[in-house]
């Protein structure tokens, strides 16, 4: 091996299985005697449960059991609070977590009330119609501002004004900054995010082996280890008795990190109670209610500037829709609050949010996890400021960028990982320059746009900046092992949903161990293979687990060299590991295969020196002291059809800095996919709830995901500012593509339609052809 794997555009180890239909997804698990579950779900958003009569369903042929909350007995309990509130002064937090099956009250459409277990899925669904349900509807809490009123109905009895949380964070003194500002700009900004809509919905298969006294659960989770721990605790089992497998998972994007979903609690319990395997696979309609989503925030924001466009301070007060329960704590609104600061020097900041309970599905992180909302606010304020102060849009951003010598940069507020919001490293201006160059910004404004406008075309440009907090703790681990056949096995606790873990982790280890990426087998998401870990979320897999793999591979390398040096009776410095062999440099024929060394490291007979550890193996853990902050700029040229208000993206550019790049091919894929999700959020996708909390567009025919015709071709540029917080220097990249697309669309569309001249601002996301028509047609 002469070429480095790390940094190369290596094609993926996992692809052959996936391409030939041989990869195992949860719904592919088939077990003898399996039962199939279907859940009866509330069809109203808010109601008291008068009665549930399941007797007729139980009597149906092929139905084995029907359970309601009562049947769960002591097992029934509200779920855990996954993320407690960060240590911010005077936080108000009212914890109300979801329950396995609703008792007394339902709080959103789709909340499960009963479960049917039957011999086939078709029969289980048939039996749902046999259940007699008496619900007494209550007024639904839907609108955020109305929810706060004393006169509003309460989602949770005893939580007046539906206040889930109240958090204020500030730095400096905004009032003083405001008093000396040349310009104050205040706006109301609305940002709504949608359903992550992985093509694979959620699913759970559970089987109890009575003889082995072990429970095995296949789950589409992003967090198998915590699922194992929680299930063991709830079911009164030792953690060793529970194996959770997150096999290939068909897209996660955040909502699959949430636990415990009601189905994750009920299905394993039913499998044990009935002593039969049980499968539940969510259908697409259920997915719109039963899987968590993101939704809207209403920001009343104000920016104070000097005449030359320097930000003196920002004040923001916002409402956050947390849905019917808040098991994920404050992660989403804290991300909004923190990420608003972006790559800019904002010396005075005063931000207050209220999280509001509503009779809608639960809100937990979805790719971006609230960062979008904050980025939209600051980017829109800067656009408006640029216009009012007569400064170029790119220039006003440049003037406010954190300078490269200011890192690590302390924002003096607390982030979602409970640590101070500190940017580890960055160099923002070259990113902006590169993006402007790639999109042809100045040329477009000076020459192209006037020329196209003269032809009657409506073409505009946008440019936005953002940061992304990635790679947060606490930790991940990895076990690296050289096997007797010379191949390397690596196990880690995180799950995988398409990020290329089977390849990037192999790339990290391949260079250390002198083996081909193809000779490294990765196991993820199986708690029997690796015991510890937190999960795949917050763009942290490559950063945290990747560095754990690196640390373990370094130790194994040392073990290889030590053993080989003993074997050849030479110094370790005289050895090299290449092509799966350890060789004495400069002595042809003096080499030993890694597999042979592995066998020697695990002798079957004889004696070993005291303290000898068997095998060429190491388990290491990595926990960063803080998150690694990636950054980037998106730029776009868009044409708007003035008749239909449909868009055509003529050019889309992302320049991104996620530190050292492990695999540029996989990184590009992450960014392309993020941009497509961002485009959906900006212009196509919206969860439309009516006043009664009914979702009006719960199908993929009505909730419009971008297709190959809407997702633009994206050109990517990189700059590299390594993170000092991990030895590989990497930063996460999972969410970067999705975060700034909303404000980019708003800015570029305004430019294309010349809305600024007519004093029309696009201060809401998502837009759509219809909404754009309404907004652009208003008379000012």
């Amino acid at each position, binding site marked *: 091996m002469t070429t480095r794997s790390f940094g190369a555009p290596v*094609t*993926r180890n*996992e*692809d*052959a299985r*996936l*391409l*030939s*239909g*041989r*990869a195992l*997804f949860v*719904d*592919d698990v*088939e077990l003898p005697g399996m039962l199939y579950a279907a859940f009866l779900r509330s069809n109203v958003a808010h109601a008291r449960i008068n009665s549930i009569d399941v007797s007729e369903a139980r009597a*149906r*042929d092929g139905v084995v059991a029907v359970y309601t909350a009562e049947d769960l007995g002591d097992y029934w309990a509200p779920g855990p609070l996954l993320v407690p509130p960060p240590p911010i002064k005077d936080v108000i937090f009212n914890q109300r977590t979801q329950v396995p099956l609703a008792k007394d009250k339902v709080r959103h459409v789709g909340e499960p009330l009963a479960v049917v277990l039957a011999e086939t*899925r*078709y*029969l289980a669904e*048939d039996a749902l119609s046999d259940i007699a349900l008496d619900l007494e509807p209550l007024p639904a809490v839907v609108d955020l501002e109305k929810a706060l009123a004393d006169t509003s109905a309460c989602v949770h009895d005893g939580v007046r004004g539906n206040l889930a949380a109240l958090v204020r964070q500030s730095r400096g003194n905004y009032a003083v900054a405001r008093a000396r500002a040349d310009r104050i700009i205040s706006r109301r900004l609305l940002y709504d995010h949608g359903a*992550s*809509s*992985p*093509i*694979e*919905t959620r699913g759970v298969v559970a089987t109890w082996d009575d003889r082995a006294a072990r429970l095995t659960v296949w789950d589409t989770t992003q967090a198998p280890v915590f699922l194992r721990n929680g299930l063991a605790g709830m079911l009164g089992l030792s953690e060793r008795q529970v194996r959770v497998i997150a096999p*290939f*998972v*068909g*897209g*996660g*994007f955040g909502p699959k990190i949430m636990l415990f979903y009601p189905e994750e609690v009920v299905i394993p319990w039913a499998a044990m109670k009935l002593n039969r395997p049980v499968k539940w696979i969510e*259908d*697409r309609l259920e997915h719109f209610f039963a899987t968590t989503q993101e939704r809207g925030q209403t920001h009343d924001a104000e920016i104070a500037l000097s005449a030359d466009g320097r930000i003196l301070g920002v004040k923001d007060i916002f409402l956050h829709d947390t849905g019917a329960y808040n098991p994920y704590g404050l992660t989403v609104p804290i991300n909004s609050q923190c990420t608003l600061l972006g790559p800019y020097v904002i010396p005075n900041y005063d931000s207050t949010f209220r999280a509001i309970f509503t009779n809608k599905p639960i809100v937990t992180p979805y790719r971006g996890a609230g960062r979008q909302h904050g980025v939209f606010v600051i980017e829109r304020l800067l656009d408006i400021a640029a216009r009012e102060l007569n400064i170029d849009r790119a220039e006003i951003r440049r003037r406010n960028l954190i300078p490269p010598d200011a890192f690590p940069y302390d924002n003096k507020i607390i982030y979602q990982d409970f640590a101070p919001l500190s940017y580890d490293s960055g160099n923002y201006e070259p990113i902006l320059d590169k993006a402007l160059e790639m999109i042809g910004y100045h040329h477009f404004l000076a020459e192209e746009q006037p020329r196209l406008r003269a032809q009657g075309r409506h073409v505009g440009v946008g440019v936005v900046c953002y940061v992304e907090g990635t790679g947060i703790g606490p930790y991940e681990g990895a076990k690296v092992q050289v096997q007797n056949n010379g191949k390397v096995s690596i196990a880690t606790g995180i799950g995988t*949903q*398409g*990020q*290329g873990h089977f390849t990037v982790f192999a790339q990290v280890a391949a260079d250390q161990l002198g083996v081909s990426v193809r000779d490294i087998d990765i196991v993820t998401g199986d708690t029997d293979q690796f015991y510890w870990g937190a999960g795949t979320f917050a763009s942290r897999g490559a950063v945290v687990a990747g560095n754990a793999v690196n640390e373990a591979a370094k130790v194994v390398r040392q073990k290889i060299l030590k053993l080989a040096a003993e074997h050849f009776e030479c110094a370790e410095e005289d050895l090299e590991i290449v092509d799966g062999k350890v060789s004495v440099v400069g002595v042809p024929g003096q080499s030993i295969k890694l597999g042979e060394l592995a066998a020697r490291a695990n002798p079957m007979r004889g004696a070993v020196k005291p303290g000898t550890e068997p095998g060429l193996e190491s388990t290491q853990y990595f926990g960063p002291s803080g998150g690694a902050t990636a950054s980037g700029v998106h730029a776009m040229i868009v044409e708007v059809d003035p008749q239909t208000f449909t868009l055509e993206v003529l050019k889309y550019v992302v320049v991104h800095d996620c530190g050292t790049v492990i695999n540029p*091919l*996989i990184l*590009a*894929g992450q*960014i*392309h*996919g*993020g941009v*497509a*999700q961002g485009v959906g959020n900006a212009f196509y996708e919206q969860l439309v709830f009516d006043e009664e909390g009914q979702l009006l567009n719960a*199908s*993929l*025919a009505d909730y419009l*995901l971008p*297709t*190959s*015709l809407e*997702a633009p*071709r*994206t050109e990517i540029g990189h700059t590299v500012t390594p993170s000092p917080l991990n030895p590989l220097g990497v930063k996460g990249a999972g969410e970067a*593509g999705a975060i700034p697309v909303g404000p980019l669309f708003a800015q570029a569309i305004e430019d294309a339609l010349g809305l600024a001249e007519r004093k029309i601002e696009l201060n809401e996301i998502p837009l759509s052809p219809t909404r754009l028509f309404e907004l652009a047609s208003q008379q000012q």
Partner: protein
Amino acid sequence: MTTETHDIAVTVNGKVYKRTVEARLLLSDFVRHDLLLAGTHVGCEHGVCGACTILFDGVAVRSCLMFAAQADGHSLETVEGLAPDPEHLHPLQEAMRDCHGLQCGYCTPGILMTMKAFLEETPSPDEAQVREALSGNLCRCTGYQHIVDAVLLAAERALGSSK
């Protein structure tokens, strides 16, 4: 409860399967859970996402929108039938791997079947044609760009090798 059943004989990837099925059994469920050809995936069960696409007498169809009984006497092809043998991939599969045209891989089988039929009809497509043909298959991971690249590459390679 529906109890009406049909005896059917269906050829899948060249092999004949004879089964007795309920009239209401979806073709997608039949392929996945009766024939255990689980490479065909189900994403929406209302004909939008395209994950369950298979070839039905050579035509790309959504197997979630058909009943198993409708396949009686017909010939189907699923993702399991694409590769010539376990050691090799179909040229379209190879191009998908080379271009990183898949991430989670869940939508991939449907895309492969849709694009196989498309390339047979349109062996030398341009990007706009590929995007149009692909627009009935949803993918949430890739942003489609690398899939489009892969289809164009597969077409280019096929033309190159046939010259």
